[in-house]
């Protein structure tokens, strides 16, 4: 709940942003964590939840996608297929040993030349959205996105909306999340637009 993850679709791709805080109880372990994990060349997922599940789930999924590509002569799964694969894994694990991860999966498909964003909670409910948020951030940010989102946003406009959301959290959210990392997924792949603190720093 404390992790802030949000995403927004624009014309030609998807933006996913997340805070960079890694904390438990009263201690901040790290403030440059990258919670938007790359899954394939043109997809990534923002993950909210305990670091253990974040790492285990995202690595399991991304390695499975890599295996699919290797086994199928380089064919990549569509974003919808990736999202449904994740859902099935979460659903299977739910009654055995659940992953407590709430995710926003964004990807770009060459076939449709457009991005798509998928919202999935830890219970494995999946829905495709134009914009969404996970965690307490949703209480602050969904209304902003409801107001400002329109069809055919440019990447800059989408980033502006995300910046607005981040600013709102900084002002009104009880927990201090000083660093946010914003990634874009479009025809050129997955890349960082902006970060509060460099994940590569020690």
């Amino acid at each position: 709940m404390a992790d802030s993850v949000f995403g927004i679709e624009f014309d030609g791709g998807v933006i996913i942003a997340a805070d960079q805080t890694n904390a438990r109880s009263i201690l901040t372990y790290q403030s440059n964590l990258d919670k938007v994990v790359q899954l394939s060349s043109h997809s990534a997922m923002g993950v909210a939840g305990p670091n253990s599940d974040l790492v285990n789930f995202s690595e399991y999924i991304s390695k499975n996608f890599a295996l699919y590509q290797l086994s199928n002569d380089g064919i990549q799964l569509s974003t919808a297929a990736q999202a449904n694969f994740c859902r099935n894994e979460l659903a299977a694990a739910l009654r055995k040993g659940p992953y407590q991860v709430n995710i926003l999966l964004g990807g770009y498909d060459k076939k449709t030349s457009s991005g798509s964003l998928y919202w999935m909670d830890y219970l494995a409910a999946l829905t495709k959205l134009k914009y969404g948020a996970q965690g307490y951030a949703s209480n602050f940010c969904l209304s902003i996105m409801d107001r400002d989102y329109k069809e055919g946003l440019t990447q800059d406009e989408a980033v502006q909306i995300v910046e607005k959301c981040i600013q709102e959290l900084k002002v009104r959210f009880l927990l201090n999340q000083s660093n946010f990392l914003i990634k874009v997924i479009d025809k050129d792949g997955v890349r960082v637009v902006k970060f509060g603190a460099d994940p590569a720093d020690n």
Partner: protein
Amino acid sequence: MSILEYNGAAIIGMAGKNCVGIASDNRLGAQIQTVATDFKKVFSMDDKLYVGLAGLASDVQTMHNLLKFRQNLYELREERSVSPKVFSNLLSSLLYEKRFGPYFIEPVVAGLDEKNEPFLSAMDLIGAPSYHEDFVVSGTATANMLGMCETLYKPDMEPEELFETLSQALLASVDRDSLSGWGAVVHIVTKDGVITRELKGRQD
């Protein structure tokens, strides 16, 4: 709060003269917060066989996949389409298999049998079925829906009138339930095909 009420849903199945209607709301919520306003809960398993799944959204999606899988197996082995009452029985068995760790869904089956007579059934989360000639309901607004259906229903409605009755019953019911609503989808199934309409109700 009950796990069956976490996401919110409202589904009605209603019978007419040689036709059957099934409708659901569009909301997907996480308790009081609305996440999506286009979440489908009624699925077409065949031209004349529809199933509506109310309850935990994750299990709705899991069960939809499972039902499609089992229906495919049936049709491969039997080399014929599955009839509504057999499908309903299959669903009941699938749910009871998980008797001590159930899927949190309460389904509604609506279809036309081989003679194009309407078939309706509803079940609880462990597969206890009930069969009705008039209407079946499921979801977070069952009290509201039962009251509306009991009042508005009459037997042997033609498809157009069935659509009106079903729509009014659902819309009025979800307006008094915070966990369901945000529009609706209504399917009217006749021997000649299905007409699907989207309803715009109160968007709250």
